[in-house]
């Protein structure tokens, strides 16, 4: 498998920036991660629409340092644009700046990097909206009372921490009878997330609900609840992909969860990068453009493009989605 990718990658020296063949590479936090792979599929779609090239490279385990060599080597290959989900906003910044200095466009998606290290951030969803809506989702299920906990990803993940911040605000503002008893960290690792969930259940015997704003975490939590036959008794919601959670939605462990469509996110990210590379947009605040099948978008403050509100999945609609 590897050598094949290698062949294609090596054998296509791109003609740098400007119009002409688009040669755009995604650098996710981690390859072989279903979420990013779905996003990649969207990217490929967009590549077809813009008849450009799509590639994805990255570290096998989420680690900021590990992203840098790939950025450097992409810089040397003078790809027309790099689309990155920054594991650590600052760790990758210097090498991204270097890339931009070489005229390579940089678009961040999923997790933003230092603003001066990218042209545009394609934001899957407004952090505030995510944070608040998840609390609302859970509130509906436990009629706004009782202890709840959050099962986050790596404690260092910036986006997770902002969401949790807004969750706290929302709780304080609207749900006085719900108290957040603990934020546990599963490090986006199945075993850890699994054990952390069990630990939560033991520390807080009358825990009413868990929010896990990470795809790995929510799946592991679902499994954990099931394994101790607490499915349904302890409500679980958060961010996850339908395929991962179909099982638990069907058996009632999870009543509802939400997620933007990662494929669309990837599509938009590639599209934006493409337009930038072709010089069709400058990336200034206020510019509007149409991104193929997704319709038109406007570049908001700090050069952010917002994908739109997340979809809420539940037993009613889950079978309409396959990602």
């Amino acid at each position, binding site marked *: 498998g*590897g*050598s094949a*990718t*290698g*062949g294609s*990658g*090596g054998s296509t*020296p791109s003609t740098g920036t400007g119009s002409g063949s688009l040669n755009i*590479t995604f650098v996710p936090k981690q*390859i*072989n991660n279903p979420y990013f792979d779905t996003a990649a599929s969207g990217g490929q779609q967009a590549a077809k629409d813009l008849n450009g090239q799509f*590639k994805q*490279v*990255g*570290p*096998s*385990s989420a*680690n*900021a*340092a*590990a992203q*840098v*060599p*790939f950025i*450097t*080597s992409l810089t*040397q*290959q003078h790809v027309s644009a790099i689309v990155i989900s920054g594991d*650590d*906003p*600052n*760790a*990758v*910044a*210097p090498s991204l700046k270097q890339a931009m200095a070489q005229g390579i466009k940089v678009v961040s998606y999923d997790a933003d990097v230092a603003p001066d290290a990218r042209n545009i951030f394609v934001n899957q969803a407004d952090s505030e909206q995510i944070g608040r809506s998840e609390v609302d989702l859970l509130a509906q299920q436990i009629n706004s009372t009782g202890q709840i906990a959050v099962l986050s990803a790596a*404690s*260092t993940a910036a986006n997770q*921490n902002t969401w949790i911040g807004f969750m706290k605000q929302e709780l304080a503002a609207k749900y006085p009878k719900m108290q957040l008893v603990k934020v546990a*960290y599963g490090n986006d690792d199945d075993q850890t997330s699994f054990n952390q969930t069990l630990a939560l259940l033991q520390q807080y015997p009358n825990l009413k609900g868990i929010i896990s704003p990470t795809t790995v975490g929510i799946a592991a939590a679902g499994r954990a609840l099931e394994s101790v036959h607490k499915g349904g008794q302890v409500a679980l919601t958060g961010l996850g992909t339908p395929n991962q959670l179909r099982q638990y939605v069907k058996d009632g462990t999870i009543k509802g969860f939400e997620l933007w469509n990662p494929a669309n996110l990837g599509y938009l990210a590639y599209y934006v990068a493409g337009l930038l590379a072709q010089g069709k947009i400058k990336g200034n605040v206020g510019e509007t453009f149409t991104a193929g099948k997704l319709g038109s978008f406007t570049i908001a403050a700090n050069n952010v493009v917002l994908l739109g509100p997340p979809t809420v999945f539940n037993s009613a609609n889950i079978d309409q989605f396959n990602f």
Partner: protein
Amino acid sequence: MKRLRSLLFTWETLLVLLLLIGCVIGSILSPYFLSGFNLEYALPSNIMEIAIMALPMTMIIIAGEIDLSVASVLGLASVTLGFLWERGNPMWLAIGAALLVGVVAGYLNGLLVTKLALPSLVVTIGTLALYRGLAYVILGDQAVSNFPTAFTNLGFGTIPGTQFPWSVLIFATLVIIFAVILHFSRLGRQLYAMGNNKEAARFSGINVNRIKLILFVLSGGIAALAGIIFTSRFSSARPDNAVGFELDVVTVVLLGGVNIFGGRGSLLGVILAIFILGVLQNALSLVNISGDIQSLAIGLLLIFSVLGPNIARNIQAVIARRRFAVGSSKQA
């Protein structure tokens, strides 16, 4: 000595060959491989921490010990640096403290190995976990990254007039120092003696324990230095910095022809091995082969760097035995 030297010689020429082959393949695979930017900047900057830590590791393994905790010490030092800087301490203090932490960590390894006569392998597997754990304890759920540009330039900037990162300069200086110590100094001679036969070394009035202690302290300090470079290169201090680097470090040392049981090996071999590793990683990522296959390649490289010489030695032995048998039967 002659036989030993010739044996090493053959091994190092082999490495040179390997390096050339690697470069040729690299340049075939990717048109960017031979670019000045790649060779001067991209290739070195990504392996400098490993390269630097490989120097003391060479000494330690030649002396018949091993230190698997280096990567964790790197992480711990990096975290210390970030922790102190974040709390508004001056940079020089943070750096000093980071180095100190490294030295102390190394000293603890040394104490456990010498005072309790424990095998360094076990001790450093333990501290590998311990130091990494402490890094998590200290910086738990944050990453420090708001470092002053003056500092980040150390890792990211280049030597004026060239495209070489500063770390190359540090490495070069260290190489000279270590080469002199290992191959021309009293200490170096004592290291080889220890590696060959600790007891005989002790009976010759060599203070084996003191030297072990020195080695581990040195290793800790250098690992901390690598940690500082690493931190500045990514302008990011995180508990998980450089996880798993110990493998790469040990790999280059063994690939460099240093005997895992101690007593044999040269710095030249290790340096060559460092470049081989660099070329490998660089070429692979240039053609967008992701980390997973790289780790596979490195793992195999490590195994074969020991398996290869073993097989070679066995073959030699067989030949020797034949020749000897003939000789003896002639004598009789």
